């Protein structure tokens, strides 16, 4: 008989159902099945590799994940330092704040009568409801906090750290903002204006001139300098959107000023968008390589899935497999309270890029 082809080395092992398996065991066996199931199992592997290596891990978060019940998973990933820097949409931080302030989102139906909801002052996020009245109270709360700050521009990193601190002091509850505050993990929110946090900030400006100013360009400089200071990075993206682009552009920007930056060393994305409509959310990680956003030899995986399916599964599996890696991790140490942040004791400027390509003389 002809010798077996080099392509036929590893047989598919049909998934056998075993009662009482934990997520890590299930994902372990899903490595031998196909399609997005295998990709999710590969994502588990890739994240473990990130944790074992000396890299700064960025987490990008888009889509209504906080309203959708995933906020404590993200808080867990931050508190236990599965990730080192969060880049989020404004809405995810806002809906996190909503629940941290002791309010809820409610189980609803995607087939609801929206006119009836409007009459009751209920806002709908697909199959999840929330109270408009409570939202208005959040906006006022954010505005009052922003008004209490010194009247000067803040990067989103500084503002969100302070906001998380205030939220922790007033509520003592777990959430994304409070976890990031307590773990000293920076949060960037590149489209903060495009959310109720931005709307709250606009009210601050109304209350007291000079407050409610956000320096989003400072965010670009800080995020790039952060990578210049610590050039080995990894990217975990949920949903795509502006956070995906922000994490990637930081790497591209940093590369101008340091030849040690060569794109992310690892990349993992969980997206429902697909590449063939041409948008950034669905773009492939291979496409990112052409831009230098991702190193050529980087371990990488795209999982085409709704994050509400993939993330609980993946995070639960990591909770079983990652602790030894987390214990040995060499993670970056930040200070975030001031105008100038630091990473591993070095300052990270927000006014100008650190040019390490310049000769030392």
């Amino acid at each position, binding site marked *: 008989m002809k010798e077996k082809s080099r392509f036929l080395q590893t047989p598919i092992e049909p998934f056998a159902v075993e009662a009482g398996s934990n997520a890590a065991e299930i994902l372990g066996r899903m490595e031998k099945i*196909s*399609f*997005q199931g295998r990709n999710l199992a590969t994502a588990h592997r890739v994240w473990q590799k990130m944790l074992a290596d000396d890299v700064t891990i960025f987490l990008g978060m888009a889509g209504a994940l906080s309203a959708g019940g995933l906020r404590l998973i993200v808080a867990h990933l931050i508190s236990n330092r599965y990730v080192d820097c969060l880049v989020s949409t404004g809405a995810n931080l806002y809906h996190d704040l909503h629940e941290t302030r002791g309010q809820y989102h409610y189980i609803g139906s995607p087939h609801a009568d929206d006119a009836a909801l409007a009459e009751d002052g209920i806002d709908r996020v697909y199959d999840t409801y929330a109270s408009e009245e409570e939202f208005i109270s959040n906006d006022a709360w954010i505005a009052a906090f922003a008004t209490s700050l010194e009247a000067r521009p803040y990067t989103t990193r500084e503002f969100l750290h302070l906001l998380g601190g205030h939220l922790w002091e007033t509520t003592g509850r777990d959430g994304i903002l409070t976890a990031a505050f307590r773990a000293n993990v920076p949060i960037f929110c590149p489209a903060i204006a495009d959310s109720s946090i931005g709307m709250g900030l606009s009210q601050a400006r109304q209350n007291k001139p000079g407050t409610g100013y956000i320096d989003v360009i400072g965010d670009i400089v800080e995020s790039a300098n952060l990578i210049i200071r610590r050039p080995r990075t990894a990217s975990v993206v949920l949903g795509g959107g502006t956070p995906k682009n922000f994490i990637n552009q930081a790497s591209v920007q940093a590369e101008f000023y340091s030849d040690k930056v060569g794109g992310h060393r690892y990349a993992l994305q969980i997206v429902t968008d*697909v590449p*063939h*409509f*041409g948008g950034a959310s669905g773009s492939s990680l291979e496409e990112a390589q052409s831009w230098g956003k991702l190193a050529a030899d980087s371990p990488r995986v795209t999982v*085409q899935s709704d994050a509400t399916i993939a993330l609980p599964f993946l995070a639960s599996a990591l909770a079983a497999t990652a602790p030894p890696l987390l214990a040995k991790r060499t993670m970056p140490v930040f200070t975030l309270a001031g105008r100038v942040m630091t990473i591993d004791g070095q300052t990270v400027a927000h006014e100008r890029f650190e040019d390490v390509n310049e000769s030392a003389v």
Partner: protein
Amino acid sequence: MPYRSPSSPGHSLKKSLSGKPIANYRPTGRPEVRYLIDHGFQAFNAGRLSEACQIFSEKMLAPENDTTIGLTIAGAMTPAGLGGCVIEMMDRGLVDFIISTGANLYHDLHYALNFTLHRGSPFVNDVELFEDGVIRIYDVLFPATVLLETDAYIRDFIVRSGLNEAITTSEFHYRLGLDLLEKNPACVEYSVVARAAAAGVPLYTSSPGDSSIGMNIAYHELMNGGTLMIDPNKDVNEVCAIVMAGKQNGCVILGGGSPKNFYLQAQPTLWEVYGIPKGGNEYFIQITTDSVVWGGLSGATPAEAVSWGKVNPGVLPDTVVAYCDSTIAFPLFCEYAVGSPNGRRPRKELVHKRDELVASLTREAKAAHKKRQSEKS
């Protein structure tokens, strides 16, 4: 009386059926559409559709290539009024045979029998529609009686035809088309099944039991003791014979589904089963909303088909997938083809050559078998 019949008490169809009738759109090769596709459709799926139009019109339809062109249809295209495009393509010899879901041919009969399907809304109350005896296909609405009367016509046709043996779907649809033409000659302008019979285009259905046509053939067996059978084996061999005889082969795939597979399995049947080294398709055009990432066949790429010998390895530049709803892409595609310098070809009229082609397949297959036997011994 069936519950949903229109004369059952309390049923008013007026409200839901007030939309315009769905008409069969006939492409005429409008130069503005060709201009838009050549110059305006430049990137992403517009770019892919533009490539598909150019590959089809300039290469597949080029007289010197004499490509045998198969069209596969999945998704509710005839209810959406795309039958007119198919009619025009058949009339002009731009498609040589068709593999369709049964539903597309069944719903085509409504037009042939002068029933009206209406434009409507996808956001309607289906319980109300049910109570009113209205059937919905996404945003296409029509009275349930259309189904009942079309079914009655099919059963009547089967009895009248005297068909009482195992036949191909192409034969069944050909006979059905002739019957429609006899009953209502004008329907050649708005029925795919009637036009296919007139133009000699064989119509195959890959899953004949999976539609109302199959349901009524089943009725004939159960209730009349009829012996008419659909023989899918004969369909497989006929499609193989057509593909084998093609100087070049190419396909236009709408949607995907079982018609896509049925078309593409022809080459593997030839090399894998019959030992006839025909090679794969020279051209491959697909319009689909499915994605490759779920692993299913509908979304599978031409590159994947190369590994199966369904598409020739050297021809990937002549394969293209446009990710788009066919109700958008196919009328544009047909306008482009109809208006191209190759917008009319002599019709192959394969319906009349089926026996001859299958005889030739039988000869080749037997010769290949003999050769293999002698190589073994």
